[in-house]
């Protein structure tokens, strides 16, 4: 069982690559594409696309199902949701704290100026 933290790392690492993001965006538009359909927009060879799909698969971002000679690729949204939740949670957490930090520092600045320093 891969833990939450490792899953997040894999998701974010998978998303760092622009080709992989483009593949995900394509799957967003048309879920259930074949490997050759996915490879079409890119100026890269099929084996390179397969490697990107392996990374996305390892991160749990896609699923591949084979039917006869065709492999159908589908998007899996769950890891993306977890990644978004991590970001949103800490964004809220730190945003409120940084607001207070700003308010405190601004008071200190005003105080320092009143004292003529």
């Amino acid at each position, binding site marked *: 069982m891969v833990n939450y933290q490792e899953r*997040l*790392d894999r998701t974010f690492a998978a*998303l760092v690559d622009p080709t992989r993001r483009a593949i995900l965006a394509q799957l967003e538009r048309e879920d259930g594409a074949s490997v050759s359909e996915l490879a079409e927009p890119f100026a890269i060879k099929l084996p390179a696309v397969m490697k990107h799909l392996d990374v996305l698969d390892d991160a749990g971002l896609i699923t591949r199902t084979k039917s006869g000679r065709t492999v159908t690729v589908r998007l899996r949204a769950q890891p*993306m949701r977890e990644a978004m939740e991590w970001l949103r949670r800490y964004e809220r957490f730190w945003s409120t704290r940084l607001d207070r930090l700003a308010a405190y520092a*601004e008071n200190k600045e005003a105080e320092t100026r009143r004292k003529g320093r």
Partner: protein
Amino acid sequence: MTSLTLVRRIRARPAIVFDACTTAEGIAQWWGPDAGPVLFSESDPRVGGRYRLRFRRLGGSEHESSGEFLELVPPERIVMSWRWKGGVEDAGESRIEIKLRAVPEGTELTFTHALLQDEETRRGHEQGWTGALDKLEALFA
């Protein structure tokens, strides 16, 4: 690698913001989870020095934050480790980096929170991050 970056403009000079981020008095003012009381706050702002704060939340539960100062370049850069005890989960040790830049109205603060991992992994992923997040937002907005 997972990290989050927030930028704030503060109407105070960098030296004041730097102290607010590193002294026991400063961090007690803003680091707590809500308006509940600060039970204690201590800080030894030098490289290798530690800080520790304990709070009581308005709901009554107590939480503790602690860590070590890893880099201190007054008044422009602070790197510290951070561990949060008493939350829903102990997410392990994180790394916090605060960069301060003087701007006409005061200070531009760039706050980065990242999971602690080896430096090489961190550098490798840092570059691609902003773009990845934009796309992530666009994909699952």
